[in-house]
């Protein structure tokens, strides 16, 4: 029992090997090597951790604990709101799980050639979807991407205000606010929210015109918006921003880009968005990622906080090589003088994204966009037929829409609790963040929802609100 058994993860966890190494360096004990750590720094009370488990015990412990979860395989799920249930092709998972890249670090182009090429193919394919030439390596989320893009715009313009659409995910807005710094900070960027039309969910352009001014570094809006609405005034918004000398930053869900115009086509200067829908599981929220893209102009390139992968030539004629570009301007290169900061992000998901985009191709994106539109609109129309239930913006949306239960006298929390008995996760409750919609929920319908699923939802909802 007290006998030392070597640990399976540590090849040198064998007393004889340790002694060999101690002998080689002429040390009497391992403790000697920690001489510089004063006694006063050492543990004041002994470390108490749960006992070490063998793999079979560990596996069972984890499986049994996780079995307390309910999943979206078991439940019909209509939650989206920044983390969406799209089909993830099995080939994507197979590729992304390969130990070769999971265990890679940041070696030389020679040791990481395949991974670097894959990252380049992520940027390149996203660039085709966005019709933009400059795409950075991904950042940690859409909100993070928006935050960095706003800071880029502030540095580029030397201005200190940003105009942000109010129909935005409150979590994302909170991230943006953290990136814009509190008012006490000297470089604080003031976030000005611009209203939306309560009838259509579209941006109120009059309000926008009133807010944009000479301190405006950028106007930021999204399409589809958080409320699902396809903001189609992009060209007008960009014109207003540009007229004031501000940058136009657009946030997009890239899975819409087979059917929706690329933001650059209606005037975007910087485009940000999420990478999660492109082949990444929801992972309880751990699947999110963000991107930043722009025209390939030095003015923009020099402000990116991200790493870049560039294709280049090698010592061998006709061979492609791939390496980190513009590394020197990052926080790795310049510490506090660098562009914001970079570090671990979600690069493995960039591999998933690359595989996903390659599998989809132009037609796949068109097909999936159309299917989502069809099924989401079908769902909204059927739901709107339920007594007392209203769809706030019944047209011009992509995959999400606001369902208003106020007329039923039931709260969203109530409805969702009741739906769980039907094996359904109802939409995201908006009643706290958007009280103006009353008891409303954001429903998400994607290509994974069949007509039968949607009818099952409608039946359940009908029963629940009729109670």
């Amino acid at each position, binding site marked *: 029992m007290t006998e030392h058994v070597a640990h399976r993860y540590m090849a040198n966890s064998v007393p004889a090997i340790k002694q060999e190494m101690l002998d080689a360096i002429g040390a009497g004990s391992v403790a000697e090597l920690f001489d*510089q750590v004063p006694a006063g720094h050492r543990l004041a009370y002994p470390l108490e951790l749960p006992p070490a488990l063998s793999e079979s015990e560990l596996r069972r412990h984890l499986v049994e604990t996780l079995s307390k979860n309910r999943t979206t395989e078991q439940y019909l799920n209509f939650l989206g709101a920044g983390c969406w249930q799209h089909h993830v092709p099995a080939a994507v998972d197979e590729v992304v799980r390969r130990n070769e890249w999971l265990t890679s670090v940041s070696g030389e182009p020679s040791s990481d050639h395949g991974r670097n090429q894959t990252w380049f193919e992520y940027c390149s394919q996203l660039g085709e979807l966005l019709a933009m030439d400059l795409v950075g390596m991904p950042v940690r989320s859409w909100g993070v991407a928006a935050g960095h893009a706003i800071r880029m715009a502030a540095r580029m313009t030397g201005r200190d205000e940003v105009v942000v659409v109010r129909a935005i995910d409150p979590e994302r807005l*909170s991230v943006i606010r953290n990136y814009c710094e509190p008012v006490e900070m000297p470089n604080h960027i003031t976030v000005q929210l611009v209203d939306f039309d309560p009838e259509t969910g579209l941006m109120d352009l009059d309000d926008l015109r009133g807010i944009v001014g000479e301190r405006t570094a950028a106007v930021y809006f999204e399409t589809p918006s958080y409320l699902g609405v396809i903001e189609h005034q992009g060209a007008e918004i960009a014109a207003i921003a540009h007229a004031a000398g501000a940058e136009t930053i657009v946030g997009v869900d890239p899975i819409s880009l087979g059917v929706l115009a690329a933001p650059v086509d209606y005037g975007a200067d910087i485009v940000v968005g999420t990478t999660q829908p492109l082949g990444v599981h929801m992972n309880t929220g751990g699947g999110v990622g963000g991107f930043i893209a722009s025209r390939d102009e030095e003015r923009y390139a020099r402000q990116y906080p991200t790493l870049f992968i560039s294709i280049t030539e090698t010592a061998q004629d006709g061979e492609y090589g791939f*390496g980190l570009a513009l590394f020197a301007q990052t926080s790795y290169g310049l510490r506090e003088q660098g562009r914001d900061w970079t570090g671990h992000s979600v690069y493995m998901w960039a591999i998933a994204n690359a595989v996903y985009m390659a599998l989809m191709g132009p037609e796949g994106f068109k097909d999936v966009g159309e299917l989502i539109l069809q099924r989401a609109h079908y769902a909204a129309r059927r739901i709107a037929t339920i007594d007392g239930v209203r769809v706030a913006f019944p047209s011009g949306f992509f995959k999400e829409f606001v369902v208003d239960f106020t007329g039923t006298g039931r709260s969203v929390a109530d409805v969702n609790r009741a739906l769980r008995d039907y094996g359904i996760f109802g939409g995201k409750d908006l009643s706290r963040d958007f009280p103006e919609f009353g008891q409303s929920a954001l429903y998400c319908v994607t290509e994974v929802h069949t007509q039968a699923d949607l009818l099952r939802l409608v039946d359940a909802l009908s029963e629940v609100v009729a109670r």
Partner: protein
Amino acid sequence: WNEPVILEMGYPGRRGLAVPEAEAEVRAEVGDVADLIPAALRRQDRPALPEVSEPEVLYHYLRLSQQTLGMMGISLFGTCTMKYNPQVNEAIAWRPEVTEAHPHQDDDTLQGTLELVHRFDTILRELSGMDQFVFQAGGGADAAYTSCAVTRAYHASRGELEQRDEIITTIQTHPSNAATAAAAGFKVITLMLDEDGYPSLDALKAAVSDRTAALMVNNPDDMGVYNPEMREWVRVVHDAGGLCFYDSANFNGMMGKIRAREIGFDACMFMLHKTFGAPKSGVGGPAVGAYGCSAELAPFVPTPVVAHDGERYYLDHDRPKSCGKIREFWGNVPVVLKAYAWIRAMGAEGVAEASDISVLANNYMEQGLLAIRGVTRSHADATSPRLEMTRYSLARMKEETGVGVHDVQNRMTDFGVDAMWTSHEPWLVPEPFTPEAGEMYGKEALDTWIAVLARISEEAYSDPEIVKTAPHNQAVHRVDHEAMEDPERWAMTWRAHRRKRRTDGAEG
């Protein structure tokens, strides 16, 4: 053979994935798809994505994975703790209970995950002495930013934020501390090293004032040097009203030896994708910087926090003093799960032994490496043993043979040894390198690593061209780094590459 870029592959009309058609009734009800999209927003062009079949895509990327060395070779990447990524952790993290769950599901339907996260929080508290951990930060730098955001909220709550606009760090603390402090709006004061390899207490005292918001520091630093005066540092900063943040990125040599809170720190962060065995994924993530802090700072951490009321686990969103969100949702759950699994496999004894082995192995390597011609050590005269890594220099080799660290890195890959890490910027010693032995690799692998460097040294002194033109044995030859810094030639996408190549008048 040279693997083509995916955008060169394919044939018009080929498909890699089938998307079903909408059901007839659905089509009938919603009518023409085009009418569902406002005219101004309809996509007119066709994105120039590749058109390839599923097997073509799969095998393309599998081949590329094979052209990635990772731990298939030996990888001792300093400041980054190469660690075994247990396969059981991966297997569990890819189960549908994890992958197919939505973060906004009702807490009742996520009890398994919440329990594991909460258990892990408890374990990290034990390891650090802190009172609360959050996992929202998507990496170590993100955790440093979290620390800055908490620092702001804390000082703001006391009305001192405007006054406290400085953060102090050291030159061998990871750059992300300085960078996030600056991005958070602070002025950064960077202390330089003394001859012992760490900044003097006097230098700190000179920097501290009533403008000090916080100290952000690691220990041991990125050269494996431990600062024995850290208790005094914390006292000096606290006395001035500042907070102390311990960047525990280099925790591997310290596990089970010290606790940040007991030394006086107010907050710390662990990198679950390094020290706790989750994959590093190309220093790319998904990752987690677990941020922990004292009870005093806990009200200010990002929301939500995983809590337990004795019966049920829940997400506590109701935290009015919170600094807000650092990132959407509540963290990279699969990474937290893997880290929890790792520590459950190790236990307290395993963790302590890992720390012992990593320090022992580093000192063993030092013995071998310093015997190699052209290799020297930073702060050569400092007598205390380095901990889990050591900073070396190839300045002498460069001077005597013209072969520098970049050449050696490239040549190493020819032997299946992943390119070693040099040093973060700025390079305090010329031609630096920093291997970190860790506890995963056996002595045989360490001996191989030393032998490879010894052989390259011999080559450098006998036939330097071999080293300077390396790699010779890899999927790719040496790349043109200069082009990647030139706006006319860099190409971060295939479309940029095609455009610029066209401009050059070359090929296509």
